[in-house]
């Protein structure tokens, strides 16, 4: 498989993960049940972990694709406060 093809698939996967964050944020706003919100936040945290692990996460999710600050995973803020040379 060519490098460009791998890049193409890689980028589609990243887009899919980002889309998933948006879906989770909408699910979160759609429920007030604390345990359902906790499950959604756990899934959100795992998805953020996958995006960080890829090492090519270039754009912060849209505001409406985020959770309230107290529900956001710490690794999200660590990653986005990191200075990149």
């Amino acid at each position, binding site marked *: 498989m060519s490098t460009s093809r791998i890049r193409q698939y890689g980028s589609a996967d990243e887009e899919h993960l980002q889309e998933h964050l*948006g879906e989770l*944020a*909408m*699910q*979160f*706003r*759609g429920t*007030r049940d604390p345990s359902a919100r906790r499950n959604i936040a756990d899934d959100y945290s795992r998805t953020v972990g996958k995006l960080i692990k890829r090492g090519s996460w*270039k*754009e*912060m*999710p*849209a*505001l*409406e*694709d*985020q*959770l*309230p*600050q107290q529900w956001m995973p710490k690794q999200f*803020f660590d990653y*986005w*406060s990191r200075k*990149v040379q």
Partner: protein
Amino acid sequence: MSTLMPVCQTVTVVAFRGERTRPFAQSFSNALQAGKNGVGLGPSFVDCLLFAGHAGLSLDGTKTIYGFNPDGGGLPAWQIMDRLLNGDRFPGIVADDTNVFNAARKRGIPEFSLEVILPDPELQKLKTALDDERKKSKYWYGFPNGDGDCNCITWVERLGLPLLTGRMDEFAKVEAIRAYRSPRFGQCV
């Protein structure tokens, strides 16, 4: 049967996708956290819109762009954003947001627009609806799937203009808007 075609006018829907690349996202996120932790004022409302993206409509070829926003009643912008992310809603307020779009242009944030061509009776209905909204909006502002009626994109639909989605990313990606910027609704000259 009358063969007369009604005269039409153009309403412009203007939008920009938020600036979310690392340098701006980093400073925005730091400002949000500083506001929350009480060690700073937090981001301004304009900064929130530059990050989130915004949409509005213009009846004079984008000289004046009206947008729909949450009326936070004096709450700091970071708190309004956090409550919207929680699914809460705020009364909507319609403002002249030309300055927001100018700020986005100044930062080089790409703007896109859609010209909606309407026959005069529909345009008059839209003008009346916009005037009423400017006096006092009847809608609640909320993020998608939250408690509000609409956000800045779907508010435009509430005024009667047919759009497609309330998610800024989806809206920005709709290829048809780029490919065909002047769809027509109704019989027009």
